[in-house]
């Protein structure tokens, strides 16, 4: 989904409305809790050493801070281990949410700026220095906008759709390994978990499309689901190649499998193998389609379907969708980093002193930037091309990659592997691509009316 | 403590609900939904018996369920395709309308 620059800009100066009471109560609660915590006298004695330690040891910092906080809670507030565990979970969730919230805000701004630069514009530059506070302004605007529900809509479904959308998007963040020991939930079937929850997004899209009782919504939802189902397959296939090579479905294990450096400086990332680079490209394309990002954003293509399944959404619900889609993009980029780009590992041995989570987020952000870049430069494709591309190129190519990965594995993952695996990947790629391009080749464009 | 029968009863309930749907609903899709529920209850039974069975390491129940899920997916795909076909033919999804074999 896109927030069109013009659309945002036209609302940027809208007058703020009333603060909803629920928000007010929430803010009050947070303030009160924080004050109570500070008032507890034990806090400095426990929290400050932890913070000091964290400063000294930046790569362990998040864990140390969390440990300190838990110590503090244990000593001052909670005695039941059940609730202590709950608290620990809550801390993690809160951290993640705030982190990705900030990232979301930042990205929405960066995207607009970058797109503007690509389109030779300035982009947002009024709110705050260099438009830095624009996301906050947008957020406030979204929250206080009127929530419109069409008359013929199925109200329950219409309401639930954004919720169903955002929950899996947030949940999948739990299995990403952000750094050594910094995996919120170390699930042995993490990759599967990711895809399983990713699949539920389709239900949400359907709900949104159907619940709106709008033909654009419904058609957009159908397109989106078809697209998501189609592109889920290459996504899983390429991930499967990695899973095969790492021998595990656990993201942590996969990242650890990419830990070393060959010849002392080339990282052993899967993206740096013949099959891996092909898989990575495939994965990234599929990921863009899965996240309904341009150039695969035709379910929401305004030229055909107004805004697809989002047509009838506004206000908070719209913001939730917006959030969910961005979180989904982050999550899938995070998965790409995990699977192919070595996760938290530094690209060079000398750079290992920089903490792993920083590397992770750097890579993640790089991928997001790439997505933005693609959005700014590549035109939207036609819907039949979209399906053909998925079924006739991506899926066969996915199988070929699995084959190539196996060849790589059994030829010893060395120079021999390169010699064997490269043609296995390259030849079908070329053949498939050629077949595709031949079939749908467009002859040279003729300008019948402009010339003469 | 959770014992086997907890899950078996859930499963039985699911089964009966599905069965009721199959018996009483007139829409073919609803019948399919019922069938899916019954299948799920069977799968649940398998998992429960695997978990509480004498040899969980054999993974028999799990494997069975995996295959069952695969088969169910195929069944659903073919079944739904059939429904579309029937719909095209009868312009209806009501089972009362397709009793050609009525003796």
């Amino acid at each position: 989904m896109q927030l069109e620059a013009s659309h945002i800009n036209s609302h940027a100066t809208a007058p703020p409305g009333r603060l909803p009471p629920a928000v007010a109560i929430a803010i009050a609660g947070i303030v009160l809790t924080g004050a109570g915590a500070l008032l507890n006298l034990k806090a400095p004695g426990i929290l400050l050493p932890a913070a000091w330690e964290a400063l000294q040891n930046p790569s362990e910092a998040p864990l140390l801070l969390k440990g300190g906080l838990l110590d503090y809670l244990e000593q001052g507030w909670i005695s039941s281990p059940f609730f202590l565990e709950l608290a620990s979970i809550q801390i993690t969730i809160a951290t993640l949410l705030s982190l990705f919230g900030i990232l979301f805000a930042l990205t929405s701004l960066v995207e607009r700026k970058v797109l503007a630069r690509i389109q030779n514009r300035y982009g947002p530059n009024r709110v705050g220095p260099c438009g830095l506070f624009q996301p906050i302004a947008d957020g406030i605007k979204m929250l206080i906008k009127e929530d419109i529900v069409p008359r013929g809509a199925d109200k329950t479904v219409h309401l639930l759709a954004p919720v169903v959308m955002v929950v899996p998007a947030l949940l999948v963040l739990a299995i990403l390994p952000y750094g050594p020991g910094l995996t919120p939930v170390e699930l042995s079937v993490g990759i599967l978990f990711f895809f399983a929850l990713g699949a539920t997004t389709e239900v949400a899209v359907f709900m949104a499309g159907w619940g709106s009782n709008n033909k654009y919504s419904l058609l957009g939802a159908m397109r989106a689901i078809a697209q998501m189902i189609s592109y889920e397959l290459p996504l899983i296939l390429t991930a499967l190649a990695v899973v095969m090579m790492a021998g595990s479905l656990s993201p942590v294990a996969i990242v650890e499998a990419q830990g070393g450096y060959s010849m002392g400086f080339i990282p052993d990332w899967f993206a740096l193998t013949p099959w891996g680079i092909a898989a990575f490209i495939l994965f990234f394309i599929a990921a863009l389609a899965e996240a309904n990002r341009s150039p695969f954003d035709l379910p929401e293509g305004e030229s055909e379907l107004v805004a697809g399944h989002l047509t009838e959404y506004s206000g908070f619900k719209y913001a939730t969708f917006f959030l969910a889609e961005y979180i989904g993009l982050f999550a899938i980029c995070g998965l790409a980093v995990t699977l192919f780009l070595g996760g938290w590992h530094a690209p060079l041995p000398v750079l290992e002193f920089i903490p792993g989570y920083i590397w992770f987020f750097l890579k993640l952000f790089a991928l997001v930037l790439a997505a933005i870049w693609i959005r700014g430069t590549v035109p939207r494709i036609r819907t039949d091309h979209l399906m053909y591309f998925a079924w006739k190129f991506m899926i066969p190519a996915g199988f070929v990659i699995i084959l190539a990965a196996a060849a790589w594995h059994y030829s010893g993952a060395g120079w021999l592997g390169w010699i064997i695996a490269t043609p296995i990947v390259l030849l079908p790629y070329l053949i498939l691509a050629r077949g595709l391009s031949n079939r749908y080749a467009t002859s040279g464009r003729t300008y019948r009316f402009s010339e003469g | 403590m959770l014992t086997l029968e907890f899950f078996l009863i859930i499963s039985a309930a699911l089964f009966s609900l599905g069965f009721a749907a199959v018996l009483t609903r007139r829409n073919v899709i609803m019948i399919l939904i019922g069938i899916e529920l019954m299948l799920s209850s069977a799968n649940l039974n398998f998992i429960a018996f695997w978990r509480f069975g004498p040899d969980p390491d054999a993974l028999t129940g799990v494997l069975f369920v995996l295959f069952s899920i695969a088969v169910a997916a195929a069944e659903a795909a073919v079944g739904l395709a059939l429904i579309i076909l029937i719909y095209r033919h009868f312009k209806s999804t009501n089972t009362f309308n397709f009793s050609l074999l009525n003796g």
Partner: protein
Amino acid sequence: MSTTAAFIAYSVLTLVTLGAALAAVSLRNIVHCGLSLALAFVGVAGFYILLGAEFVGFIQLLVYVGAVAVLIMFVILLTRPDGDPQPFTFDRLRRALPGLGIALAVFLVITISIRTSESLRAGAPDDAGVSIEALGHKLVTSHLLPLQITGVLLTAALIGAVLFAMKEDNN
């Protein structure tokens, strides 16, 4: 997982699953039924996870929620129900009564059987989950043939479904 947490999880899952299943079979709007079915599937997946079969649980999620439920939804949209959902009448209830009675009888019989058999009550499970390695190993060794056959079956189903649903040629 502690016993308490398991109980809580069990209770929640029971509520969700049975509620969703009940909704799935009883709601008049067929789309709601489909959505409830998806939820029921999620609940069953939850049961799997609760029982230690995470892998199966997520597969259930992936296949049933991600594919089957969506597929059902598609079919719902592709086929138009005969008219609008009819309002509730006692006449319809009366016609459905034998079916409901039989279903209830089945439930009762099964439940009574379960409740009266001692062997089902015993046996505390030890916390052994599914080892993915073991599962994979078994799949490609002792269960290789079923795996292959399933592959063939799925392919056949794919082709069959496509052929069924393809638009019939007018000539």
